[in-house]
């Protein structure tokens, strides 16, 4: 009996691990930056390159930083949702134009609509590296104290927006300096 039972149990164990493996995404690297201060930066704006945007100017409000590029295909599919979000006036969305030609980027926004309060030129990708970006698009949720509370890897989907990003943003907007809101408090972000 045992002779047949042992291989069966071993098989089920291996099958269990493999089944779990099917659900995991090996390309997804969890950001260790969650709940850490967002690296500060100062970059020229895409539409007025002589003006600088400093991340510390955003202290005191909740904002989204969306990393995008005109060469990024997934950004194209994500963009209509961001345009919608910008019309809803819930939270300011800033774009980090990652390793892109400014002319291409401007054309792209003209074609697809500009979802950003402002896009910032990260021509050599240095700020991207500072933020631990390893693919585009990525979207950071940054709170009033300048702390990264969430990061969406890949395109923001409608369900991720409704179940995680927006509820989290609302909580963060209601929070005072004394209360700490973590993304674990929003069910959809788990």
């Amino acid at each position, binding site marked *: 009996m045992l002779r047949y039972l042992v291989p069966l149990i071993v098989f089920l164990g291996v099958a269990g691990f493999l089944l779990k493996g099917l659900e995991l995404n090996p390309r997804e690297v969890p950001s*260790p930056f969650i709940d850490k201060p967002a690296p500060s930066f100062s970059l020229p704006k895409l539409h007025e390159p002589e003006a600088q945007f400093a991340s510390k100017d955003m202290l005191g409000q909740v904002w989204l930083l969306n990393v995008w590029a005109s060469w990024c295909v997934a950004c194209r599919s994500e963009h209509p949702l961001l345009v919608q979000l910008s019309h809803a006036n819930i939270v300011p969305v800033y774009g980090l134009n990652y390793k892109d030609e400014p002319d291409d980027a401007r054309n792209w926004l003209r074609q697809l609509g500009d979802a950003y309060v402002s896009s910032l030129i990260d021509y050599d990708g240095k700020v991207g590296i500072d933020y631990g970006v390893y693919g585009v698009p990525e979207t950071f949720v940054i709170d009033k104290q300048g702390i990264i509370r969430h990061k969406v890897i890949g395109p923001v989907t409608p369900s991720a927006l409704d179940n995680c990003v927006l509820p989290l943003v609302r909580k963060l907007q209601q929070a005072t300096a004394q209360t700490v809101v973590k993304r674990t408090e929003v069910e959809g972000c788990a």
Partner: protein
Amino acid sequence: MNSLKIGIVLLCLFVFAPPAFAKEAEYMVADPEMEKTVNAISEELRCLVCQNQTIADSNAPLAVDLKNQVRDMVESGQSQSDIIDYMVERYGDFVRYRPPMNTSTMLLWVGPFLLLLIGVVVLVVNLRKRTTVIKNDGDLSVEENERLQRLLAAESSAPAAKHGNLSSQKAGEEKS
């Protein structure tokens, strides 16, 4: 005759020509010593978009950027551990090509030895079982033992029957 001469000359040219080796293009680096440090650190860092390569091995754009970042940091005088800490802060332990030992990687480090241990235990248990089985097989009952003794005795008292040559045996059979 002329063509033969040309042939010989050509052959000599081929045989005695100094060997030419293709050289890999060398990077134009200001400081080869520093480049060595950069490479050594790059060997420790995983390329995030091509997962099973180090950033030293990979030509993916992100890997090149990270290498440049490492170079900048080396240039500004930061140590290897500073640079690796910087990368881990941004990309997590995942970025280290050799994972550190901590609670989340414990199973990774201990797992193979655990499996080995289980294997050895199974092997020892099985081997023990097998020797007991052999011993039991070797244990004869009293009757079997008597039969064995009888057979052995019969064998030693009549060796010719078995070991005699074939022709004499045949002859004996014909007689009877």
